[in-house]
């Protein structure tokens, strides 16, 4: 029985199915943890306790929230495109699972060891902007449409510096395989790419905050201007899935940043998986910290930061990296 099971698990297909199931379980739990974490971080920064009433220290609050979201009626606005309206949240969530496949949680714990893992993640995470576009268009609501337009402009703009930053690391390692890139950095703290490519890390992190529509770049859902942006008309689990997808994308970009720049699973004493998760959640904490510190940028500022600063800097970083590599080798 056990021999059969291991045989099935070592088969690529079995391995992938098991990984997908595990990823989905992880995503669900992750949503609950991050909701709690976000509200606690917000609370502590504002010097109040945050959720406190449901369960010890408010630990069961996310479960109560989830219960509320699940039990709410799904409504659809008049004149909305039914197919697009319901396809959007599904389309937002589905690629997330695939994006998790090539992420190297530890030397052994990788869903699918593909040589183009980085490309896979970048390609599939791009689908999210399509989902937001569908949500905005399908809702038949001006706020949703404006939010969707913003989301697309923002995603298109910030994918470029993101790619430029990633390319610098890929040049150095000569691989797009995340496991290989992480492996290269597992020779102690100083081998981490964040020390050789600090600028690329900075660009990557800023661009990933923008890509995940997190504050201060949360223009697509700017609540003070657009009610809730693209998900204005969504209630119950329609909104819940968008929410879950947003948190999952946060984990993805932070996991990619960890694998690319922060040495992946590298760290003393504890097994690699714990180091990897600690770094990922550390970066997510920084994102939350940003959210409760910085006010939202204006749209022209958002695009100025991208086109006038991040892209030129990214190009410069790339050229310098290429020159260095040429001279050294």
């Amino acid at each position: 029985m056990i021999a059969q099971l291991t045989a099935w698990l070592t088969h690529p297909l079995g391995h992938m199915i098991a990984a997908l199931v595990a990823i989905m379980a992880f995503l669900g739990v992750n949503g609950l943890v991050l909701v709690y974490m976000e509200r606690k971080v917000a609370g502590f920064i504002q010097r109040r306790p945050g959720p406190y009433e449901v369960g010890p220290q408010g630990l069961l609050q996310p479960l109560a929230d989830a219960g509320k979201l699940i039990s709410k009626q799904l409504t659809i606005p008049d004149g909305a495109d039914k197919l697009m309206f319901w396809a959007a949240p599904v389309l937002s969530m589905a690629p997330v699972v695939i994006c998790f496949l090539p992420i190297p949680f530890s030397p052994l714990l990788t869903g699918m060891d593909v040589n183009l893992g980085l490309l896979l993640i970048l390609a599939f995470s791009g689908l999210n902007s399509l989902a937001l576009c569908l949500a905005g268009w399908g809702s038949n609501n001006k706020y949703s449409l404006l939010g969707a337009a913003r989301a697309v402009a923002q995603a298109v703009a910030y994918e470029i510096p993101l790619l430029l930053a990633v390319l610098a690391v890929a040049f150095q390692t000569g691989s797009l395989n995340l496991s290989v890139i992480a492996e290269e950095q597992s020779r102690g703290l100083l081998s981490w790419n964040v020390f050789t490519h600090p600028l690329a890390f900075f660009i990557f992190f800023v661009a990933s905050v923008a890509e995940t529509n997190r504050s201060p770049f949360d223009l697509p859902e700017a609540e003070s201007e657009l009610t809730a942006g693209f998900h204005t008309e969504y209630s119950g689990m329609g909104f819940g899935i968008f929410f879950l997808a947003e948190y999952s994308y946060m984990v993805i970009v932070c996991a990619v940043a960890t694998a690319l720049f922060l040495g992946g699973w590298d760290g003393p004493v504890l097994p690699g998986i714990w180091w990897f998760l600690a770094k990922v959640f550390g970066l997510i904490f920084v994102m939350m910290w940003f959210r409760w510190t910085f006010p939202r940028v204006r749209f022209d500022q958002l695009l100025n930061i991208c086109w006038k600063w991040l892209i030129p800097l990214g190009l410069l970083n790339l050229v310098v990296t290429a020159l260095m590599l040429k001279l050294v080798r």
Partner: protein
Amino acid sequence: MRSLIKALKGLWSLAVGLRITAVELVKPQITVHYPREEVENLVSYRGHIELVPLDADLQTPRCIMCWRCVDNCPSRCITLRMHVKGEEAGRAADPGLRLAPDIQVPYSQHRTPPPDVIERVLDVYRLNYSLCSLCGLCVQNCPVDAIRFTGNAYLVGTTRQTFDIDLLARLRQRAAATVAARSTARAA
């Protein structure tokens, strides 16, 4: 070059902002966890009014029944009834709601007899708190400081009757509670 310096300054200001929120993150909370904790400083809080007892006798209010609080109240939320000692209780005319200025009230305005000549007994002193605007004119105008604000910040109720407060009964209850507390303290 100038824009570069501006950008670097901007980045520095972001770091300063992050430092401030990080410091706030680790500081202790300053909110009060209401059902479990209550605010300590209620001295300046204006709750509904209450009657102040005599220093010598906690059961008796200081009130000399001059009617000034009733007359001054812009919201007409105080009801006062009294009788002169020796007379039958409740014989004094019920002033009721006085909306017209020409209606005279017994012992009101300048017709108050000096307190040492006729002894009066307070029968009823009620506050309709749902009308009260907490302006404090009754407290300001009381010649003998017989009215004060309570620190009762946590008064809640689901019916109008909750806010029709019998201040005389309240005074007696509190006096009884104080006496009981004193006797237990003495016994201990």
